[in-house]
């Protein structure tokens, strides 16, 4: 009996992510879903600027590399010119929730039929651990050495809940990549987000709570626990919007 195997569309390249970083799980889930839904041949992915910028080396499909924060606008351009393609962008929280806020909000509001994977690790990974808009209260980063203080740096932003209020959004979910159970749920949400695009129902986003052991300054196992302890109180899991007639696939 085959229990697990490497997704066909995942290349033999070694991940460039740090050891124990759950970006690797997010990447794998996207690859698995593309395989299972048979979409890989017609897919165009958009690379954001962040630790996932090397994604094109790992998933064997067409890619465009976007400027920092603009991945969703690039994805919109592709989808409008090539409606028959499956178009997705894979963005970090700095990319999507800070510099790319306008692009994501308006892609969502227009109901552009693209799929967004939003990796929220509450920090800027690639640039070495600065505060992100998603950094939680009290979290220390290189630019909030004393911990994020809402009086000075404001509050963390819940993008997926915000986006789910927009009529153009067909599917909006938050999952976590820190336990087998959560990963199984994440997998279903990732598939659903592609199915929603295939059906032409509108904009779909899956936020994945992810670790950054390197910049959080903890071991990978401790980082998994920190998602439960530090992130879940600010970022509850669940599906905030599901198209009519579709069942929920994430149980909290």
């Amino acid at each position, binding site marked *: 009996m085959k229990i697990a195997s490497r997704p066909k569309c995942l290349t033999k390249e070694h991940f460039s992510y740090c050891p124990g970083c759950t970006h690797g799980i997010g990447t794998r889930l996207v690859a698995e879903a593309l395989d299972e839904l048979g979409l890989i041949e*017609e*897919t165009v992915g958009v690379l954001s600027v962040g630790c996932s910028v090397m994604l094109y080396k790992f998933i064997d499909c067409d*890619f465009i*590399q976007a400027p920092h924060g603009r991945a969703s606008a*690039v994805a919109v*351009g*592709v989808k*409008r010119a090539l409606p028959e*393609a499956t178009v997705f962008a894979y963005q970090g929280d700095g990319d999507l929730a800070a510099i790319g806020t*306008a692009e994501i909000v308006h892609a969502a509001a227009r109901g552009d039929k693209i799929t967004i994977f939003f990796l929220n690790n509450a920090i800027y990974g690639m640039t070495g651990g600065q505060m992100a808009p998603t950094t939680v209260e009290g979290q220390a980063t290189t630019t909030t050495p004393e911990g994020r203080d809402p009086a000075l740096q404001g509050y963390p932003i819940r993008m997926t809940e915000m986006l789910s209020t927009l009529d153009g959004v067909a599917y909006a979910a938050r999952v976590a990549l820190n336990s087998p159970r959560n990963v199984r749920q994440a997998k279903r949400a990732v598939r659903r987000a592609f199915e929603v695009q295939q059906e032409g129902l509108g904009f779909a986003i899956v936020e994945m709570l992810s670790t950054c052991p390197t910049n959080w300054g903890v071991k990978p196992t401790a980082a998994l626990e920190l998602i439960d302890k530090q992130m879940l109180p600010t970022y509850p899991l669940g599906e905030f919007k599901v198209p009519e007639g579709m069942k929920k696939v994430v149980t909290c």
Partner: protein
Amino acid sequence: MEKVLMKGNEALAEGALAAGCRYFFGYPITPQNELPAYLAKRLPQAGGVFLQAESEIGAINMVLGAASTGQRVLTSSSGPGISLKQEGISYIAGSEVPCVIVNIMRGGPGLGGVQPSQADYFQATRGGGHGDYRTLVLAPASVQELYDLTALAFDLADKYRNPTMILGDGVLGQMMEPVVLKPSEEIERPIPGWAVRGKRGGKAKLITSLYLEPEALEEHNLKLARKYEKMQQEVRWEEYLTEDAELVLVAYGTMARVVKGAVRRAREKGLKVGLLRPITLYPFPSEALGKLAERARGFLCVEMSMGQMVDDVKLAVCGRAPVSFYGRAGGIFPTTAQLLAQMEKAMKH
């Protein structure tokens, strides 16, 4: 050949349609609003897509996405919006994706004003965004040229896999003139091999401007530099009464029309003057100017700016003759009398 009376902005739009462009992404700004309004009507009729983006940043990145699929894509704006587009233009140039960008210039800096201007010459011809890159820059001076050069802009963009900019001003866009339109036939343009449209049985493709290895990035820059060198062959210009001219005026776009009128008047008065009008600003007609510098006694560059193209004229003339400058701003055109006075002054030197 059919001749119709058309507004400049409409001619540009029809030129794009005739060239097979079916995708437009933009954000409103004066003085180019008539162009998107016209395309908002015409593109859906032609089976294309018109999308008003959330900003010029959004628009130019949609251009990057749509043009990466191998389609002909247009965006248009004016100074402040073109500044916002620069990040995207740099990525588009770095990724070697063809597209056409229209800048209907207005006066700056900052919010400036909405009157015609030529103050974005540096921005257009030097790249404008970060990194070593160039955009092809075309400067139409009539409604007919708005139509013809738009088609050329798409052809050049495709030929060099490079963004092409059309640099115009509000007067040109609003002006009505007769235009000869090409017979409307569906142009068959194959989708280029580099386009990303899903692998569809082939190998995965990547459109990128990222080269993390120093050697690879240098090789990429050298490749781009060779391309820009090759683009020099696309230089285009018009000369008017330059054969025996002692003073050669240099002007482009709407300003060249005003100057041409003044040159005609000067000739009536017996002044030996002529005009060189660059049609491409990048590449710049340096060689043509250099040739004229062998016998002309002086040059006078006239711009709707405080002096930008004049730098390129000086580089081309290379000290062989004096180069003087006359510039106006704020949307104010010089009168013929003022230009005559400038010519007389330049000829006295």
